């Protein structure tokens, strides 16, 4: 059913349709409305047998979904920014314990200075945790990815947490037309969760052992193997989703106009929609520009990125997070993916802390690169003139 809804509702509704057993969360802007919607559904008896709990902190919320998942429940949580950082210790732990929890991150910058506005520094900062990360461009994509996230995470070849990253405010609070799924469709796609192991008095297991040096490394490498298998499982499920709903979100990446492009812009999240518009306009003007949308950030789709950028002489990477003191994060991954190819990479940092990214700025960034006005090195665009105060 196509309806104009706000992002947080589209997300909450897809969570409901995925029939979780336990939802535990803690409010934080701009995620709050997602769990508020779920709380309301719970209060109205619309979540079936599911239990909804407001935790005492994001740390508690993450720990609760960890416990719930270990007991055999399908478990969901959502957070943003500081909340995600507070969850981090638990998320590393849940990934190591191979618990298939699903979480939505309403992307927000991190403090200091305090900012409630959007960039992707929060989720980027936990990229190494062993959690699948997928960045969506629209609320429809966020809505569709929820059942898929559970299905992939719970696949026994995977068993890793799955994080859907949705730009805070820009998507979570935006009104967009969304084809809302119905229960029948979701049930057809997503069967009830059958845990491989669970806490059960009839068949006791010990979970969360400690591993001395002769054992630890194998556990961690096993996570790498699972992440690799996740890459394949995700592609299979993307395909199934397309067959079922008619909506084709592509694979781990979506390459548009890349075959003959002189300049390809790499982007993740909601900014993709803007870049697409700019690219299409420039194409109309005869400029050979392309777009590479990265959807799956972990596992990083190196081969897909390399293939898409094979013919690109110049690659612009739009960065909405930093790795302060080093190459911006997506750039580092893109560069390693295309190592050996004859392409120049232009990391452009924009839109931190909710700074607007106007269309004209994206056009200028592309023009500057096309016309050779800038060097292939880290740049900050949309930056005010400022003087650093050193006390």
């Amino acid at each position, binding site marked *: 059913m196509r309806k104009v809804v706000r992002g947080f509702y589209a997300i909450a509704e897809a969570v409901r349709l995925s029939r979780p*057993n*336990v939802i*535990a969360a803690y409010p934080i802007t701009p995620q709050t409305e997602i769990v508020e919607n779920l709380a309301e559904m719970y209060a109205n008896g619309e979540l079936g*047998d*599911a*239990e909804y*709990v407001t*935790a*005492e*902190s994001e*740390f*508690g*919320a993450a*720990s*609760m*979904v*960890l*416990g*719930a*998942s*270990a*007991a*055999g*429940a399908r*478990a969901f949580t959502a957070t943003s920014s500081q909340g995600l950082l507070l969850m981090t*210790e*638990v998320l590393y*732990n849940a990934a190591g*314990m191979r618990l298939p929890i699903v979480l939505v991150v309403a992307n927000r910058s991190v403090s200091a200075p305090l900012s409630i506005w959007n960039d992707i520094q929060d989720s980027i900062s936990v990229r190494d945790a062993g959690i699948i990360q997928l960045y969506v461009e629209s609320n429809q994509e966020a809505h569709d990815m929820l059942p898929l996230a559970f299905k992939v995470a719970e696949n026994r070849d995977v068993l890793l947490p799955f994080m859907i990253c949705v730009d805070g405010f820009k998507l979570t609070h935006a009104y967009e037309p969304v084809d809302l799924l119905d229960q029948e469709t979701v049930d057809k796609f997503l069967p009830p969760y059958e845990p491989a192991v669970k*806490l*059960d*008095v*009839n*068949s*006791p*297991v*010990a*979970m*969360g*052992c*400690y*591993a*001395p040096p002769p*054992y630890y490394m194998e556990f961690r490498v096993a996570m790498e193997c699972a992440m690799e298998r996740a890459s394949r499982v995700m592609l299979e499920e993307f395909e199934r989703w397309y067959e079922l709903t008619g909506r084709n979100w592509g694979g781990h990446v979506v390459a548009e106009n890349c075959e003959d492009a002189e300049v390809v812009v790499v982007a993740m999240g909601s900014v993709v929609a803007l870049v697409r518009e700019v690219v299409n306009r420039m194409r109309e003007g005869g400029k050979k520009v392309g777009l590479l949308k990265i959807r799956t950030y972990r596992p990083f789709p190196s081969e897909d990125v390399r293939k898409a950028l094979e013919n690109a002489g110049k690659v612009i990477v739009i960065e909405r997070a930093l790795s302060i003191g080093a190459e911006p994060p997506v750039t580092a991954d893109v560069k390693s993916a295309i190592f050996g190819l004859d392409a120049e990479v232009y990391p452009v940092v924009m839109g931190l802390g909710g700074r607007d990214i106007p269309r004209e700025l994206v056009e200028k960034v592309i023009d500057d690169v096309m016309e050779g006005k800038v060097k292939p090195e880290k740049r900050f665009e949309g930056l005010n003139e400022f003087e650093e105060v050193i006390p």
Partner: protein
Amino acid sequence: MNYFGPGHGACPGCGFPIAIRGAIEALDGKVIAVNSTGCLEIVSSMYGRNTWGVPYIHSLFENAGAVAAGIETALKALKRDKEAHVVVFAGDGATFDIGIGTLSGMMDRDHNVIYICYDNEAYQNTGNQQSMATPPGARTTTTPVGKLQPGKIGKKKDMVEIAVAHNIPYAASASIAYPKDFQRKVKRASEFEGSKYIQVHAPCVTGWGIDGKLTVEVARLAVETGLYPLVEYEHGKLVKVRKLKQRKPVEEYLKIQRRFRHLFKHEMGKDILDQLQRIADENAEKYGLDA
């Protein structure tokens, strides 16, 4: 059926295995055990050497309360809540200090969990660093004894009262020196729906500096001197207290432990000894310990 061990790696004379085994036996093995990082976890859950006969989970140092809450919530959602008691076993560091937030959240929401804190009065797993459960005057590696400092300065946090303040149905203190009393309390706790808190005093041979064969005796002296009153609350009301026929002076308890030995020589030791006796006297008055 062995619920805990054999094969665990606790020190000879360690206090807490008595409590762990006692608690699970009291509940006829119908237990899902949640354990915070600490001594108990390290001695029982090494990969390939699990010594638990019941389902067991360890996540982190400071989240046992929330993990237990999550398990209990899941069992409810999955209609498996009659299957087992969710029981936390956590040390005093995990309970009084780093994990008090998740424990408070668990008790505030009144999750149906029995939370058992084995209190050995310091971070003993890592070699005796002070916790908020460390009594005044105790020598730990982070409250060392020096010219200016006679061991820990300050007080021991009253976690039982903090638990009671959460309006949970049951809270009690216990001691491994009184295993029957402890088991009765665990059983009693299991009869209530909601959060239950039991704090069981369990000496640490190495951290306290005692002979392994004296563990039970030392624990008993803590009770008999009034320093570790055994009390029991139901729905916020004090319902039972272990009375003492002849309360002993605290020195009898302190002098047999290396962690307190300096108090008898240090120039500030007398003040601390007085403070400890005062604490025992106050406990006696508050709970009516003297028979």
